[in-house]
């Protein structure tokens, strides 16, 4: 925590050990600095820290007047609006616990967390959310008050448990006039080890779990992140990811209260890109998918641009690929290249970043899943300091972050201050840090399981590389071993394959087998486009997938993946020996993928049994008959003879000698 990182200007979180106390600190020391922004009627409105404190304390007093008790739970449901963020602090000010709920859940999905958390109050953003709560009200015995932010469409509602946010605030102002110190007294009662928020994990298996996080958890984890990156008052973020997601709470709430920077809310969920461009945030987070989409759009628009622009773009992108990353990391680069890069900045990179709203990004994060190295390098090469981080709800987000200047596309960085990492015998990543959650709400068995021996069991398999960077390879339960004992991490291999735009989906097989094999799905658009450019005619996906030229191209990709795998000691043993290209796209309608596009391994293993048998024999073809579901629900069968190809593999020693050349 050197002074150089700006830590000297930060509040002491031992004294200001809750968010409401930090808010008081900010209202005093950062009174006129902007705390929140929102675009309303086309104009950006902003609130200073002292205004926010006034607002928060007024509404909090309103809640006191309504009879809120310490420990009551308040659900917060809606899009990213300043009032919803304020409600987190409002609840905390009177000792209540906020429970953010995903705003796009349908009513029945909301029922579980609302019921489980026994919420007594709820803040609903608009009519849509109010309707869901009215529908659920009869099932929720504890819910007594529903406060709404946007009154549009709610004017005629007759339910007596509905309250307008503005009325509550007015009530609070009157209450404060009579009891001036009421909220301050409640804030003073707050302690660092009180529960400050209960986010519910999405729960891909079973019911969602409520994660109890204390002020100490959130504050210390977020503080470590603030210090690590040197975040300061002048920074700015655009809060556009779901409010109920812990990452958003960490970036747009916790870190903002510590570092004092301004959180801007978009005008609507459709205007995010425009708002991004207008604001030019300096601190930006997006999942890999969004970076991927932006890059695709850029590529498409460049291909549609005039010849000269296109030529210029490709020329300077070549320069950027060559030296951009080095320049970003402050490494030495030849004078000519530096000059050309400077010219590129004026002509291409600068305008491009400006259009994307990323001109001022000082720190950009991506996390959640693996990002393709090409995509990652694209952003870094045009001068955007994009980095990866690792964390989860249970760890109050911040576990590892890539330090500036030590960025690798396939790691998630080094542990933050106070974080200890251990890899157990099964390869699972265990964590000890101040951010580790207190317990799962009303679920001692799950808590016991996740926190055995004082370590948090992440469920992710990973390892530390030679530079001490954490590398996540797969979910621990999916990681297996080949017969010869070498590590087999299917998702790690599949991701490497999927980074090629021509490969849409891949399924790696190998647990308990002699070698690793793969089923591959080509991407109809990318490959179709490629076929068109190369004058290859085809009539159907099945035909396209079976073309020898396509096999040849995929072969080369697989060989490249094998080469990459061989270069890494731990996974070198699980190179892909044989593969085939599937005759149909894996589809959620056929049960092969989940609705969130994750591969359902066991289902595929059953369905494509004959193909898998073929992969583990000497046969050069395998035939299969599968049932397919058409979009209108009719079913049909699809028969195919598929070619099986031996892939080029590299013996680890050979690759190491190659690398030495």
């Amino acid at each position, binding site marked *: 925590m050197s002074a150089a990182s700006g830590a000297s200007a930060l509040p002491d979180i031992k004294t200001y050990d809750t968010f409401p106390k930090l808010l008081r600190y900010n209202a005093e020391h950062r009174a006129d600095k902007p705390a929140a922004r929102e*675009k*309303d*009627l*086309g104009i950006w409105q902003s609130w200073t820290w002292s205004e926010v404190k006034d607002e928060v304390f007024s509404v909090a007093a309103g809640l006191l007047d309504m009879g809120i008790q310490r420990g009551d739970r308040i659900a917060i449901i809606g899009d990213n609006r300043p009032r919803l963020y304020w409600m987190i602090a409002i609840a905390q000010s009177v000792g209540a616990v906020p429970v953010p709920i995903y705003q796009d859940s349908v009513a029945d999905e909301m029922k579980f967390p609302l019921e489980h958390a026994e919420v007594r109050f709820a803040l609903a953003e608009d009519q849509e959310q109010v309707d869901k709560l009215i529908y659920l009200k009869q099932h929720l015995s504890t819910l007594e008050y529903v406060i709404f932010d946007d009154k549009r469409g709610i*004017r*005629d509602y007759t339910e007596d448990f509905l309250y307008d946010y503005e009325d509550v605030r007015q009530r609070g102002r009157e209450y404060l006039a009579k009891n001036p110190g009421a909220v301050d007294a409640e804030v003073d009662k707050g302690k660092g080890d009180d529960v400050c928020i209960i986010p519910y994990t999405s729960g891909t298996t079973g019911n969602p779990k409520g994660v109890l996080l204390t002020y100490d958890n959130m504050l210390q984890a977020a503080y470590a992140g603030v210090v690590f990156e040197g975040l300061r008052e002048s920074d700015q973020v655009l809060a556009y990811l779901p409010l109920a997601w812990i990452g958003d709470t960490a970036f747009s709430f916790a870190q903002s209260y510590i570092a004092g920077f301004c959180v801007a809310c978009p005008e*609507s969920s*459709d*205007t995010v890109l*425009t708002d991004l461009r207008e604001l030019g945030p300096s601190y930006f987070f997006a999942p890999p998918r969004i970076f991927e989409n932006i890059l695709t759009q850029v590529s498409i628009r460049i291909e549609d641009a005039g010849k000269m622009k296109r030529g210029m773009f490709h020329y300077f992108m070549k320069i950027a690929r060559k030296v951009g990353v080095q320049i970003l990391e402050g490494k030495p680069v030849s004078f000519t290249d530096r000059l050309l890069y400077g010219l590129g900045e004026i002509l291409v990179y600068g305008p491009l970043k400006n259009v994307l709203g990323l001109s001022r990004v000082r720190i950009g994060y991506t996390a959640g899943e693996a990002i393709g190295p090409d995509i990652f390098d694209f952003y870094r090469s045009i001068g955007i300091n994009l980095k990866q981080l690792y964390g989860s709800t249970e760890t109050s987000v911040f576990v590892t972050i890539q330090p500036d200047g030590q960025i690798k596309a396939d790691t998630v960085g080094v542990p933050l201050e106070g974080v200890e990492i251990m890899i157990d015998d099964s390869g699972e990543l265990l964590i000890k840090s101040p951010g580790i959650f207190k317990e799962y709400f009303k679920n001692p068995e799950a808590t016991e399981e996740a926190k055995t021996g004082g370590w948090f069991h992440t469920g992710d398999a990973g390892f530390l590389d030679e530079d001490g960077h954490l590398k996540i390879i797969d979910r621990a339960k999916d990681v297996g071993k080949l017969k010869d004992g070498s590590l087999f991490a299917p998702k790690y291999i599949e991701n490497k394959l999927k980074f090629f735009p021509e490969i849409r989906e891949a399924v790696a097989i190998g647990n308990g087998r002699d070698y690793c094999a793969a089923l591959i799905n080509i991407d109809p658009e990318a490959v179709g486009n490629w076929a068109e450019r190369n004058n290859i005619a085809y009539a159907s996906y099945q035909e396209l997938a079976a073309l020898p030229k396509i096999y040849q191209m995929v072969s080369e990709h697989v060989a490249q993946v094998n080469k990459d795998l061989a270069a890494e000691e731990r996974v070198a043993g699980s190179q892909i020996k044989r593969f085939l290209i599937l005759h149909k796209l894996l589809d959620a309608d056929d049960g092969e993928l989940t609705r969130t596009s994750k591969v359902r391994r066991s289902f595929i293993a059953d369905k494509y049994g004959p193909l898998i048998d073929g992969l583990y024999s000497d046969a050069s073809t395998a035939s299969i008959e599968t049932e397919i579901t058409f979009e209108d629900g009719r079913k049909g069968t699809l028969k195919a003879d598929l070619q099986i190809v031996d892939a080029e593999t590299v013996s680890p020693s050979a690759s190491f000698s190659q690398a030495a050349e």
Partner: protein
Amino acid sequence: MTVTDQQSRIGEQILHAENITLGFGGVKALNDISFDIRKGEIRSIIGPNGAGKSSMLNVINGFYQPQEGTIHFKGVPYRPMRPYLAASNGIARTFQNIALFRGMSTLDNIMTGRVLKMKASLIEQAFYVLRGKKEELEHREHVEKVIDFLEIQAIRRTPVGRLPYGLQKRVELGRALAAEPDLLLLDEPMAGMNLEEKEDMSRFIVDVNEQFGTTIALIEHDMSVVMDLSDRVVVLDYGRKLADGTPDEVRGDQAVIDAYLGVTHE
């Protein structure tokens, strides 16, 4: 609000049409039609193709001059009515076939709805001085409220020609709303829309009516929409009035059933 409040939403007559007859050569588009529109209600005009619905709207709008009959609007009889007179009297409309300025942005298109309320001179507007500046800000604020209301912030700067059909319809509604009309005429606002777009549009129509208290006269083909939204419905067929009443009354009317299910006309 209580049920009586709901009913008190509807006030006295705002428009009264008596014995309207409109012919084009030998064709009688409208034949002796009488009906009224009350303040604050959603009034629908329905009927099969060629029933005279759009003609009726065009008469109210002043686009066509009926050969016979009179119309009172806000108690004042129509002299020979012209569209611009109708507009300045507080009647705004949308069109069956979208009539927007395709090259202009959503914002500018909606701004044109304010044109009758602009009093500044050309010079003041061109140089953005004096009343020109003051008015521009006031009108822009109003337009932004409309944009916010219709949830079209994301397309504020997009030329409307590039927008999908459903959104263009919404922009057109926005332009009509910008004029702060007393009577809003909607000519098939949901024609050609998919289910989701129809639901959105229905919600906007109800919201306009409830929040601004705007009286709405609606022409629509989609019966389920009409029956859900309307306070009262008038049914036309071949230029004649078949029925007039609440959705329930109209639904049970034998003449209406015949017209919709089809009987041979002699």
